[in-house]
Each structure stands twice: as structure tokens, then as C-alpha cells.
């Protein structure tokens, strides 16, 4: 009974977050920056933030996560961090030799009011930025937004700093994958490839945060969107952005800056959202959907038909980020499951409306909160129990206390592997999600069935 301190009775809280379903902006910015090839993320603030962000990403990916910090001290906090950042830029290019330094701020440097572009210009004027190397930045005060906004901001910074158009269109499409796992990014690229569409993906953390054991430690692994690719995005035929919160801003910026038209879609989780993605790709690129992809869809369909009786009426509680939750909820509803408690720590304008719309047909009361925390989610569950939890590792406290099976999904996952290798996006990702959901619920059924109704075949 770890969370024995969670009372059933729900009282309005005014000044307090308990057991957050979110974390701060810089970690999202750091994650996005790792999706640029040969890029060292840089945290402009005190050491602690950077250490925490790296540790959390390291625990989630089980990969080395590199990032530098301006190492603020009292002096810097009073007089500003200009000297620190200039020195940092110099040191980083001298010793680590990345192609790009991606600076994000922290609460501290934001409150002091450091002007990053101005400092970068100073560093440039002093010759601290070697030719052909770049310093990009995003402002990420954590007292606004969450890790999702940080990710979105850094993705947009890639457009602001790199995208160029020289008037000649290239036969390629941009894909902005959203705040998803490296495995998901790989899967999206694969789908595009199967369809014969040439794509540039950014950010792209595949082969950065899911790389193989090589016996070597590479500070800059071979994955990631290259600077050249990023620059070329301004000449692409169109942009497809997945996840409105995480990718929308970058897609719109690219449209404004280089007149690359964009389609902003939900994350392709489950049938409907994946259909929309594939269909958009088909239409924009003017191609046909190949049989192999239709077959994948058919396989997903097959699982659903074979097992549909086990989905019906399963009550689910979800916590996570808005983009993921919208598509996931849609998927669950489409197979007759009942997502009834849904929280995200991230404030999102249309979130509640979208969820309400999607869950309209669910014959049960649905609770939605944006922003909400896991404490509230737990209270809802106490008042109206569920059969399944879907969310990040922190949900395991609730799972244990209430004895409800948990499918790990989202960020961070600190206690299992798989998320960096096996996708949950696309039709195949959908199959994996269903496998996980069925494993969890059927294992539970096996455990709890009385002897007489314990079944061999299910």
C-alpha cells in the first residue's frame, strides 16, 4: 500500500500538484535535440537540471545521453549567464566537436532573462563558433508548459534555424513524428518507404537512443536528422506533422517560412488514425497503397475480430500526453473498450473537447482532466474502479495498490524495456499494443478465475 495516503474523497486543490503526470520543458527540448545528427544539447542553467534530465532519459532509454550545461553559480544567477554560455560554446566546439549545439533554457536562466540569440551572436563575433557549425536555441521556462511544449519548441527551432528554400522543389516529404519513441520514428519511416515516398524526418532519434551494442562509445551516434537534411526541408513538397501539440508548431512555421504546405494529423495509433496518416501520404504523394501495407492492416483487423469479446466493456484509466491520449482513446473506443478516466499533466486547449467527442458513444461516465495529476486519477479510480491502466512507470504505484493490471505506455518507462525497439504506431504498432493489452487482461483473468471457470483455450 504505497499510496495508502490517497483518500477516496476528492477535495478541490488549489496550490498543489501531487504525483505529477508531466515533467518540465527542457527534457523535451533535450530529447528533440538528440534527434539531430551530431548535436550536443546544452542546458543553459545550473547543473542540477541537466543532471536530472540526462538521468531520466538515460533510465528511459538505457542509452548514454549526452548534454552539456552552463553550470550556473551564484555569480551567474546575479549577473546573468552570458559569460558561462560563451565559454561553454567555446569549450564544446573545441573538445566535443559537435556540428550543432542546441541550447535550451531552464527556469533559472529564464527568470534572470538571458537573451540566448544575443549571446550566440556574441560568441559568433568572438569567433567561438567554427565555420559550418551551428548554435540553435529554444526558450523553455518550466513554469509554462511541460515536456511536450519543450519538445515542440525545439522541433520548431530546427525549422527556424535550418529550413531554407532555394525555390527548387525536391521530390521529398517532411515528416515530423511527434514526441514518440525512436522505434516509432523508425516505423513511420518504414511505412513511408513501403509506400515509396521519400521522406525527411525530424527530429529523428532512431539509432541515437536505440542503437546497437558496438563495443564502442560514440559521443555522436550515426542516427539523427543531418543539418543538410534539415536545410532541405524548406524545399520539400509537403509536410506531414503527427501529433498536434508536439509537431503542429514546427509544421506551421515551415509553411510560413518556406511555403511548404502541411497536414497536421493525430499520432497514428490504432486503425483510424493510421488510416488517416496512410491516406494523407497516399493523396499528397499521389500514389497507391501497396498490398503489403493493406495486409498489415488486415492482420491488425484479424486480431481485433479474433479477440473482440475480451475487449468489450473493459474499463481503462489513462495518463499521458495529449497527442498520445487522443489517438489511444480513439483506438480503445474503436475496439469497444471503455476509457473512463483520462488525465494529462499538459494543458491543452482542445483536449477535453476531443476526448469528449471520441468517447461520446461510451456508455459510462467519462472523466477528463487537463491538467490533472496521478493523485486525482487514483481518486477517480477509487470511486469508479477500472480493469486496466495504461500509462508510464509511475502508474505502477496505483496498479499495485488497487491491484489493477498496467500496460506501460508513454514517458517515462523506467522499469521495462521494449519501447525503444518495438513501435506502438502504425498497424504493426497497433498489433503490439493489443498484444500487451490482451496479455495484461487475460493474465489477470487466468489469475482470478475460480477453478471451475479457468479456461485452457481463450
Amino acid at each position, binding site marked *: 500500500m504505497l499510496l495508502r495516503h490517497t483518500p477516496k474523497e476528492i477535495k478541490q486543490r488549489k496550490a498543489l500538484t501531487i504525483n*505529477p503526470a508531466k515533467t518540465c520543458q527542457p527534457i523535451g527540448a533535450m530529447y528533440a535535440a538528440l534527434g539531430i545528427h551530431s548535436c550536443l544539447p546544452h542546458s543553459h542553467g545550473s547543473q542540477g537540471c541537466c543532471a536530472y534530465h540526462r538521468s531520466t532519459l*538515460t533510465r528511459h532509454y538505457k542509452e*548514454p545521453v549526452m548534454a552539456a550545461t*552552463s553550470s550556473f553559480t551564484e555569480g551567474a*544567477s546575479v549577473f546573468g549567464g552570458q559569460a558561462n554560455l560563451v565559454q561553454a560554446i567555446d*569549450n564544446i566546439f573545441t573538445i566535443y566537436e559537435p556540428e550543432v549545439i542546441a541550447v535550451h533554457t531552464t527556469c*533559472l536562466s529564464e527568470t534572470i532573462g538571458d537573451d540566448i540569440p544575443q549571446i550566440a551572436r556574441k560568441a559568433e563575433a568572438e569567433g567561438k563558433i567554427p565555420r559550418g557549425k551551428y548554435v540553435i536555441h529554444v526558450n523553455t521556462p518550466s*513554469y509554462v508548459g511541460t515536456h511536450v511544449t519543450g519538445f515542440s519548441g525545439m522541433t520548431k527551432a530546427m525549422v527556424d534555424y535550418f529550413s531554407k528554400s532555394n525555390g527548387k522543389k525536391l521530390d521529398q516529404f517532411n515528416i515530423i513524428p511527434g514526441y514518440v519513441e525512436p522505434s516509432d520514428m523508425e516505423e513511420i519511416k518504414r511505412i513511408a518507404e513501403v509506400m515509396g515516398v521519400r521522406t525527411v524526418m525530424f527530429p529523428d532519434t532512431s539509432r541515437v537512443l536505440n542503437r546497437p551494442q558496438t563495443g564502442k562509445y560514440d559521443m555522436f551516434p550515426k542516427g539523427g536528422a543531418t543539418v543538410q537534411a534539415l536545410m532541405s526541408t524548406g524545399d520539400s513538397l509537403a509536410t506531414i506533422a503527427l501529433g498536434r501539440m508536439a509537431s503542429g508548431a514546427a509544421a506551421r512555421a515551415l509553411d510560413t517560412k518556406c511555403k511548404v504546405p502541411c497536414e497536421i494529423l493525430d499520432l497514428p495509433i490504432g486503425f483510424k488514425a493510421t488510416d488517416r496518416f496512410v491516406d494523407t501520404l497516399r493523396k499528397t504523394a499521389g500514389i497507391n497503397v501497396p498490398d503489403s501495407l493493406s495486409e498489415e492492416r488486415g492482420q491488425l483487423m484479424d486480431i481485433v475480430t479474433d479477440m473482440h469479446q475480451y475487449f468489450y466493456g473493459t474499463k481503462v484509466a489513462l495518463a499521458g500526453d495529449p497527442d498520445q491520449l487522443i489517438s489511444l482513446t480513439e483506438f480503445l473506443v474503436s475496439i469497444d473498450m471503455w476509457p473512463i478516466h483520462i488525465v494529462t499533466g499538459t494543458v491543452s486547449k482542445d483536449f477535453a473537447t476531443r476526448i469528449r467527442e471520441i468517447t461520446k458513444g461510451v456508455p459510462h461516465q467519462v472523466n477528463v482532466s487537463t491538467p490533472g495529476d496521478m493523485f486525482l486519477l487514483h481518486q477517480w479510480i477509487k470511486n469508479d474502479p477500472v480493469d486496466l491502466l495504461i500509462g508510464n512507470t509511475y502508474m505502477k504505484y496505483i496498479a499495485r495498490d488497487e491491484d489493477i493490471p498496467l500496460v506501460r505506455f508513454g514517458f517515462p518507462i523506467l522499469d521495462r524495456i521494449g519501447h525503444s525497439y518495438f513501435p506502438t504506431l502504425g498497424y504493426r504498432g497497433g498489433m503490439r499494443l493489443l498484444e500487451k493489452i490482451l496479455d495484461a487482461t487475460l493474465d489477470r483473468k487466468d489469475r482470478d478465475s475460480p477453478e471451475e471457470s479457468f479456461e485452457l483455450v481463450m
Partner: protein
Amino acid sequence: MTTSIFSERKDQVHRKGEQPFQMACDRESLAGAVSQRACVFCGSRVVLYPIADALHLVHGPIGCASYTWDIRGALSSGPALHRLSFSTDLQEKDVIFGGEAKLYQALVELIDRYEPKAAFVYSTCIVGIIGDDLEAVCKRVAEEKGIPVIPVQSEGFKGNKRAGYNAACRAMFRLIGTGDISNISPLSLNILGDFNLAGEIWIIRNYFERMGLETVANITGDGRVDDIRRAHGAALNVVQCSGSTMDLAKMMKEEYGIPFIRVSYFGVEDMAESLYSVARVFEDKDPEIMNRTRALVKEELQELYPQLAKYRESLTGKKAAIYVGGAFKAFSLVKAFRLLGMQVVLVGSQTGTEEDYRELYEITDEGTIIVDDSNPLELSAFLQEKDVDIFVGGVKERPIAYKLGVGFCDHNHERKEALEGFIGMLNFAREVYSTVMSPVWRFVPRRELKKSRRAATESKFEPGIAACSSQA
């Protein structure tokens, strides 16, 4: 391959045997370095958080609280309030207009809801900048609610983890001296600097109990507010780990005249010596205590040694690298590896002092690299240069070791087995053995490379490798 070191960092790395010992440390990290260090807040949080029946409220933006939500497995035998994450989750308007009102409200709500024995309020960087008067808010709530509400001045930029330890000590010191000490035995002590990871403090308490000593307060593993309030009634402070609670011991000595001794519960030699030195303190009050202690050590060792022997046999000659938070831990590790027949070729820490490094210099072998506040590039270069078999470090070091194809042991937050005490030495040996001798390294390209290179120069036979990896 070249070993890259920032030129500014040259004097924070020393190779024993090259020149007379000299080491610069206690320095602020270089801007732009991928430092493995953390902040003041982290230091305070780590020290105080195991106090299980206190409320721990992080006053700041959400991240600082999210990242420290139950990250360290500090076990509690009772309440578990410390495992929840409470944050004032500061928003833009709070940053502009100040967060005092929000803090007050949060405290009142939490205290009403949980009725904790005390509350700790951690300040983070931003609070230091916006200038909230933590002290005043805490005082007000303390008066209204009738429990101690203690501000922890842990703004991250005010130094590294060590400054955070100090802030934590000052916070605890405000509790000490407020409890009733009338029935405490003269044969009593406080355990300082143990956080009950994997239940370690229970092992140590058991030893002291067998020696006939009463443990008044655990500081802070499985800690309780009321015990800490009575801590000034103990006859001795037993302090483990150089940084974290030494300041508290010093303050208690000054204020209450309680003597302290430094100990380490890690490794056979240090564990035994720690018990003996505690016994020596009480010898005049209890002449039998030394005999009981000897008997205890003997009993434990009789059990331990035969079991260690088989690990030692396989591990002899293997090479280890150590990079830990505090240097004191490194001393014990060096000795423990020696007991296993292994050689330490690299040793470093995030926050060691000059004195610490000098001591390391004394106890290590020729050629050992000693390093302060290192970074991943340096570390990985050293690991390869020295061709180590195991790396002991924390979260951020683990994947580096694994990428290189080197065994790893977490001697920090993520340890899963108790490593303290005599039984801890056995656990440690088993853990080292299981990673160093793991057959998975046979599949690792680095080892393949090395093997083929060696095979080319020497004979075709590798009896060492073949023999070790076949048994588990």
C-alpha cells in the same frame, strides 16, 4: 586513441607514479562540460527524503519535483509519505508575483490532509531568484499547525551536491534537541549517513543491537521525525560517508558535546573496524562490549569467508574502475576490490576534497588514474585505455560501460542488493562476479577485437577466458 581532457581540467586528473601528487578539486565545473554532477537541491533531497513520516514539499516548478519522485530506494518499515511527490508547481504568474501565497496554501492543505510529524520545504533555483521568504511562510504555518515546518535552503545554483548536504544538515539540526531524552541508555548512538538503500540500515542496527547498543535515531534511512528530535540524547554519532551528514555531526558536537566517529560499513575490513571503533568508545562504560564485538565479527566472518573464496578465485587479476559521488565510498571500494583479488585502475568522484584524493593516492597502486568531476568522454577513454572488467558508478555511467562492453555495478541510488555489512560484502562479490564473468561479454565486439588481436600476437589459447565464463 587519444584521451581527451579539457586543458583546464588537466590538474583534476592524476596518474599515480608520474609526478608527485597534486590535485585541484572543489572547483566549479567548467561551463560546457558534460559533467556528471548534480545540484544543491539534489543533495538536500537525497539526504532528507528518507525521513518517512515527514512531508517533503518541493517549492518550485514541476521538473525539480518530478525528477526526484521516489528515485532512490530508501526503504521505510512504516509510513511512506516520503514516496509521494508534492510540488507547488510554480506557474508564470507565481514567478512574477511571488510564490509565497501558493506555498502557504499548499502547506496548509497538505498538513491538514496528512498530519505529518514535520514538514520540509525545499527551495529551488527559481525561488532563490524570485526571493520568496520561505522562512516567514514556514514559521507562520508552524505556528498555526503546531508542527515543525522547516525550510531547506537548497537553491541549485548555490554550489554542488555538497552544499545541499549542508543545507539538509542545517534543516535537521533545527529538529534536534526538541524531543524527550529521559529514557535513553548511556550505551546509545545515532546512525548518520545511511539511507537504508536495499534495507542496509537494518543490517547495521542489528549489529549494534548485538553489541548491546541502543540506536536512537536513523539519520536518515527509515528515519522518523520523533527519533531525530531525540537524537541529542545519544552518546555517540557514528557517521558514514564523507559528505552527507558530517556537518550535522560537527554541529551536534559543538552544541551538545556528542562525539562522533567516521565509519564505513562497506567491505570486510572497514565494516569490522567500524564496529571495533564504536566498541572502543563504550569500553569504559561496558568492559564486555569488545568481547561481544569480536565474537560478532568472528561469527560473521566464519560464515562469509568460505563463500567469498569461490568468487575471489575467478575474479583475481581482473581490473576495476570506480566513479562515485563521494570519495569516502571510493576508499572502501578500493579495499573491497582488493579483497576480491582485483586491481583498481581508475578511481574518481564528483565531489571529493583534496584530502580525499590524497588518501586515495595513498591506498592505490602505481599507474592508477585519479580523477575529480569527470565527464563521459574522459571516462570512456580511461575505461578503454585501462581495459577494465567492471565499472562502478551511478545512473549516467551505466550505459557508457555497457556500450563499451564492460561490466557494471551500481553503487548508488539504483543498487538493488544491500552492499553494507558482512552480508553486503558477499552480495557485492556476487554482483561483481555476475557482471564481470557474464558470458554476454563474449558477444561484445570489443572483446572479440581484443581476442583476435591477442591471438595474433600470442598463442592461440585463451585458457583464462574459457575457464571463467563456463561457470555461473
